[in-house]
């Protein structure tokens, strides 16, 4: 069963002059095993929507269901539903609290009531995911780590919960390109291995298409585009522009090549694919005799 939102709306500071509609009548469904990227300009409501999806913020209108259960209700069932969704907040490093990295990462699993052995195992795997081996970092204070390490430790704290739906709110903002690449590699592996759904909020279309097979574009609190990246770049370029999001560089490159008469596939989202397409059409240079 999926994670589903039905006509969800949210207004901050309702009934005051500062009232602000952050999420406007959003409906969507996310299946287990999907990798979804949520993209949109600043203030379009992504973080608010993420909190709805995780069942942490009850919507003012509409309904959230995690595997068929309302996570915002009271009682045990709702709690179980809530624990199926894990949300890594924007700037999660600000929520570290424990004396050691291990204790912080173990906080979630301990709340699940697991045995200490299992807790340790989960914390170790999660810290491996963050490339912070437990032997080296486990006993250190989280407050003496670098900013990037703090971020990764905090992310590990959510990963250790082993949610069915992992929601990440701009997890790599402020990472250097190398760390970002490594993080996405690990995330891809985790997604493949665990079969969880990953919903990643990002500002970068490049990252979105590298990882996700489904793109949600948000603008003014609404999901205005929902679909496969290739199809969106082919058919919904106008809407994309209206949302203040640009197509990735590779798409404009392909566009220009096609405009100059190269008959190549318009759906290339990957450098290797584009090279292969080009080699195939360049006179006298079949893919066989490249290099």
């Amino acid at each position, binding site marked *: 069963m999926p994670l589903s939102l039905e006509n969800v709306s949210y207004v901050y500071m309702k009934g005051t002059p500062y009232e602000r509609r952050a999420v406007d009548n959003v409906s969507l469904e996310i299946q287990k095993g999907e990798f979804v990227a949520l993209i949109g300009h600043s203030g379009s409501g992504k973080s608010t929507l993420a909190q709805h999806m995780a069942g942490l913020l009850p919507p003012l209108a509409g309904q959230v269901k995690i595997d068929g259960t309302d996570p915002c209700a009271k009682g045990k069932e709702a709690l179980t539903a809530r624990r199926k969704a894990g949300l890594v907040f924007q700037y999660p490093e600000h929520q570290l609290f424990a004396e050691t990295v291990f204790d912080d990462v173990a906080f979630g699993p301990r*709340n699940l009531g697991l045995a200490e052995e299992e807790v340790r195992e989960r914390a170790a795997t999660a810290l491996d995911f963050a490339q912070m081996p437990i032997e080296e970092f486990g006993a250190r204070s989280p407050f003496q780590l670098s900013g990037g390490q703090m971020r990764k430790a905090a992310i590990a704290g*959510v990963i250790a*919960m082993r949610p069915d739906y992992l929601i990440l709110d701009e997890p790599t903002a402020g990472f250097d390109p190398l760390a970002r690449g490594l993080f996405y590699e690990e995330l891809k592996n985790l997604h493949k291995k665990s079969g969880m759904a990953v919903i990643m909020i990002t500002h970068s279309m490049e990252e979105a298409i590298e990882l996700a097979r489904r793109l949600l574009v948000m603008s003014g609190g609404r999901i205005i585009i929902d679909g496969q990246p290739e199809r969106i770049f082919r058919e919904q370029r106008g809407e994309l522009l209206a949302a203040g999001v640009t197509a990735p560089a590779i798409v404009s490159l392909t566009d220009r090549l096609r405009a100059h008469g190269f008959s190549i596939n318009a759906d290339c989202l990957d450098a290797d694919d584009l090279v292969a397409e080009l080699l195939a059409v360049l006179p006298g240079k079949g893919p066989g005799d490249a290099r």
Partner: protein
Amino acid sequence: MLGNITFGQYFPGDTPVHKLDPRTKIILTIIVIAATFTAADFWAYSLLTAFFVFVTALGRLSFVRLLRSVKPLWPIILITFFVHVFSGQGETLFRLFIFKITGAGLTQGILMSLRLVFLILFSSLMTMTTSPLELTDGLERLLRPFRRIGLPAHELAMMMTIALRFIPTLLQETERIMMAQSARGADFKSGGLTRKARNILTLIVPLFLSAFRRADELATAMEARCYHGGEGRTRMHELALAKSDALAALIVVFLAAVLAFIKWCG
């Protein structure tokens, strides 16, 4: 869940009440509240109510919202009421358990609670129509004469401005961290006492850290802009009294005079 605090919140507007000089508003509010505490009969309270309605309408504020600002202080008002009712002197009206209720006590109780309600209403009226910045500005100007006896007027006002500015920010932060820890299975509502205490700790540590971080950043930012306290500081917006301030003062003085007349002659 923490965002519903109406008491003291500013509602921007462009009405004559909003535009009054903050000093005028502070002083006149104090006068009106003092007058409220001398008011002791039906006519006096009718007049005050009329005045309250007049200012609220002039400031285009919602009565419901103003009345809601009384809500958090209900317990205090109720306690005041009962203390006065039960400790009244004079002839017994009727008995309730061991207490005797007297006419004088009842009147006293109603009067005191009414005064408290008006105290809250009039101060809310001021804070809802004056931005925190203006309010501290006004306060600083009013306190300035006391600098001669060593009162750090500017520093006090600056501290107040910063505190007021950061209360909503910290509330938001609390809410965010609470959610983040809930996402990791923390439960702030149920569970035993030790579990609750431990969960609160996961809230307090990050909150303190963030408060210190913010304070640090703010201090650096102020220093980078060459802030060095009140000495020799000029301001971008000088407060200036206008005709409307004189008019407001006249109205309030007239009101106070009528209330005094009712008290001594009525």
